[in-house]
């Protein structure tokens, strides 16, 4: 009897140890990735790297200024395209949560969220690049905004659903029209959740490369024209990583460091927003 109990206790301990070991072991890649990025990345980053254009191989120096600007332009473009639509659809889903259309829309959001980024890249190519016969910043923005959309819709819907019903009732009881209740009472109360969703979606698209391969394409030079190809940090990393030159590999690490900093920055701000502006009921 006692042996039996001991055996069970031992089994319990062994299992616990295995779980802890496996969980810790899976952190190993993260530590290695962060270590590689910081070690190789910081060595390259200086003012020149941030402020200069790429130079052809063989010439020393140069930087990724155009990629930084390009990424910023792409982020702004896709935000403009997706945020209004995302929030409006989110409001619809939270207001009509049991309707037939809402179910269909929700299914579509799930499918959109799971659509591989490369497929979205092809679609943006067919919609924007092929008719205009040129890779362009606009097409990149379209592709990225399609990727942002489901995240924003979901965040808006989830946030607004958490709003207590008496908030809406109080506003309606005061004679505030329905649409003003939504826009001036419910939406501002849930702004922290929506902002968090937007920031998370930005974090998602900032690092996306696959949809940009045939849309924004990449550009060695500075470009402000939205109808011309534009560079971006993830594309530059890909381009440099696949090249055979060690100098460019170093640049890829530098750009990676910046990209990770931006993405993690978005994540951190999102968390800060969620924590700071949390409305208590």
């Amino acid at each position: 009897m006692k042996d039996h109990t001991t055996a069970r206790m031992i089994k319990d301990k062994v299992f616990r140890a295995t779980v802890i070991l496996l969980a810790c072991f899976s952190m190993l890649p993260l530590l290695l990735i962060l270590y590689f990025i910081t070690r190789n990345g910081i060595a390259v980053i200086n003012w020149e790297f941030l402020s200069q254009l790429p130079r052809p191989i063989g010439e020393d120096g140069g930087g990724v200024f155009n990629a930084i600007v390009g990424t910023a332009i792409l982020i702004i473009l896709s935000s403009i395209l997706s945020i209004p639509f995302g929030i409006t659809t989110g409001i619809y889903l939270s207001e009509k949560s049991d309707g037939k259309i809402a179910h269909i829309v929700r299914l579509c959001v799930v499918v959109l969220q799971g659509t591989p980024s490369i497929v979205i890249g092809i679609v943006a190519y067919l919609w924007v690049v092929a008719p205009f016969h040129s890779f362009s910043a606009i097409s990149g923005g379209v592709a990225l905004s399609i990727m942002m959309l489901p995240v924003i819709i979901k965040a808006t819907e989830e946030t607004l659903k958490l709003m207590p019903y008496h908030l809406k009732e109080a506003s309606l009881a005061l004679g505030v029209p329905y649409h003003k209740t939504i826009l001036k009472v419910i939406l501002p109360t849930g702004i922290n959740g929506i902002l968090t969703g937007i920031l998370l979606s930005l974090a998602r698209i900032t690092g996306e490369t696959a949809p940009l391969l045939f849309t924004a394409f990449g550009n060695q030079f500075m470009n402000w024209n939205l109808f011309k190809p534009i560079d971006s940090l993830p594309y530059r990393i890909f381009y440099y990583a696949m090249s055979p030159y060690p100098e460019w590999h170093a640049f890829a690490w530098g750009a990676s460091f910046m990209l990770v900093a931006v993405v993690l920055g978005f994540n951190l701000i999102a968390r800060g927003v969620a924590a700071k502006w949390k409305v208590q009921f």
Partner: protein
Amino acid sequence: MTEMCSVNGIGMQDINEKTETADMTAKNTMDKSEQRFGKVLLLAAVFVVVLLLAILATLVAASIPAIKAFGLTFFWGTTWDAAAEKFGALPFLAGTLITSFLATLICIPFSIAISIFLGEYFKEGVFSAFLRSSVEVLAGIPSVIYGLWGLFLLMPIMRAIEMYLGVTPHGVGLLTSALILAIMIIPFSASIGREVITLVPGDLKEAAFSLGATRFEVIRNVIIPYARSGIIAGILLSLGRAIGETMAVTMLIGNSNFIPTGIFDPSNTMASVIANEFAEATGITAASLIYVALVLFLVTTVVNIVGTYVIKKVALEASKEVT
């Protein structure tokens, strides 16, 4: 155009419904701005549906030349030759299947360990906060950086292993891609696993504990059976991710359009062949690549719908049991 008409039809109906509910709540005035508001909401929602249908329609329309030329033989044709204009997608189907299933297999023990760790052993505390935020950071790192890291750390290691085993030392190939994919999908399935494990009702666990069960027995006989379908759905969703993942795989798979014969062989997945070839493709080659994209889209859609449906059902059952 017909699509737009039907959209408006639904719109009017819906607004009528809304006026009824508005009547019931607080007011029975229905001014124009109210109507407009409802219309805008509906339009945005319908736009999402139209967007998805348009994506599907575009893919189908653009791949019609390839569908006409190859039909279903596309799926078992083994040659992919742009010069001869002969396209069969079997090598990529095989590449995608092997890498994603292998990655899922590697990912399962780790993600279940993390879910149990966070959902049962260490629900709170510094240790769990550290692990949870690490998982989040891991999930946030862009795919292209995984690829870069794989090129400079994983590839030399794999090359050394291949030399040791006496196979051709490519360094890149199916196994390397599967490894990087596994690392990328662990956070995803782990977070879903954690969620379903925390959904297990406390009284079930307490009942088992009060009968003298050890922690391990509770986990094996109560928690895992209860959370099983949710965990499986999480794994299914991460499989969907692995199937569609592009950049890291493109950088590590070796870009070879032949049927792989071994686990170390360079190959191509559906996503990576598009990434590698689409920018230079024209005519029937482009159509064939879009055909591949269409298949990829349909496969991930099915996987996602099934996975999401199962998870929703699990959450629904759990909420019923609590009340």
